[in-house]
């Protein structure tokens, strides 16, 4: 396997050919913000928070989808990137109804953490306040569309790890919605195995376990690495 040497934020790092800038950076302790990427499933480049600057490239690149190249000079923390990331988070907040004070995920939400980290103290665009439903039809879990950022982590983990492909995205543009099977109540789904993987990877409080109240929902996605390693290497590492 060929090795690529590159510079990220002034540091010389190496990665395997085909590895993403994102993975190589994180392996070297350089943290790039992200909401749609999650280790163990494929990347789609949906959130654009991992945008980085690459010397000689006319455009910004999504680190999660860009493979490392020999001699690349990558910057992950410039003022310009910070500005873009901040606006992206504001747009996400304005798109649906994110009310932290009543959310099960309050205090350990990836969206909230990112907003805090980027210093989002107010939102400069108009809130859309869409009227969206909450699907409580499943026996054990709930889906609150108001808190969904359409990262599609749930769709991918269900397809790629569980293999059920219960979730997908319906509609287009501003009308996009996560749907189970034929857009029916989750509890009626014939394909859902109730494994709960989607709940654990969801970065916000959109997917949650029933019975949890404000701030009580903790997500744990260590299972992903465990299962993926087991599948690929036949090793069960806790």
């Amino acid at each position, binding site marked *: 396997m060929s090795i690529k040497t590159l510079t990220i934020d002034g540091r010389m790092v190496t990665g395997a050919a085909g590895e993403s800038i994102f993975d190589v950076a994180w392996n070297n302790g350089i943290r790039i913000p992200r909401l749609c990427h999650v280790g163990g499933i494929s990347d789609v480049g949906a959130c654009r928070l991992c945008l980085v600057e690459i010397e000689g490239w006319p455009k910004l690149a999504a680190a999660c989808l860009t493979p490392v190249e020999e001699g690349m000079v990558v910057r992950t923390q410039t003022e310009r990137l910070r500005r873009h990331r901040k606006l992206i988070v504001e747009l996400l907040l304005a798109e649906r109804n994110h009310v932290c004070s009543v959310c099960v995920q309050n205090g350990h939400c990836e969206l909230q953490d990112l907003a805090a980290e980027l210093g989002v103290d107010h939102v400069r665009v108009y809130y859309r306040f869409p009227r969206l439903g909450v699907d409580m039809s499943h026996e054990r879990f709930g889906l609150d569309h108001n808190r969904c950022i359409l990262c599609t982590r749930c769709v991918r983990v269900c397809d790629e790890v569980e293999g059920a*492909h219960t979730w997908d995205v*319906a509609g287009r543009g501003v009308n996009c919605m996560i*749907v189970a099977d034929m857009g029916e109540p989750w509890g009626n789904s014939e394909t859902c195995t109730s494994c709960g993987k989607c709940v654990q990877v969801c970065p916000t409080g959109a997917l949650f376990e029933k019975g949890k109240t404000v701030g009580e929902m903790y997500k744990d996605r260590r299972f992903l690495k465990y299962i993926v390693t087991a599948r690929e290497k036949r090793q069960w590492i806790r």
Partner: protein
Amino acid sequence: MSAQTSVNSPERSSGQAVDQRAKMLERAMSRHHYAGDALLEVLHTAQELYGYLSPGLLREIARKLRLPPSHVYGVATFYHFFTLQPRGEHTVMVCMGTACYVKGALGLLEVLERRCARAGSTSPDGKVSVGTARCVGACGLAPVIVWDGEILGRVTPQELNRRLDALAVAEVRDDG
């Protein structure tokens, strides 16, 4: 899983017609070797045959092409071309091309939306499906509507109202 042979059988069609359509859909799928990546072509055929894509029909297509239902549903709802509701008895399209727009297409659409349904849907009484189009290529006749496939030019809101009256579409409701 349900044994669906007659997928969505509108009462008005005879059993034989249903069979015929199901057979034609089957043929379209087999022509593509039931390959998942032929989904779009198959959805096109299904919509042409049945006029709309019912949940039963979509499920059947998913099963035959060995695709997850949510994926099929996602594709069907992504394209404006597909409709998941039965079409009304009449289909009225308002051309929203530049010429028609300038000549008052919006006023025509307002009449339809007030009396029948939002663009892209069907009136509750099932009489009229309302749609919009981007330039039907008859700009000289602006504003144009396409009434059941027939192009009508220089349409006024009055004329449109008269046509709807003739269908006994409920009188103009209060704005709101």
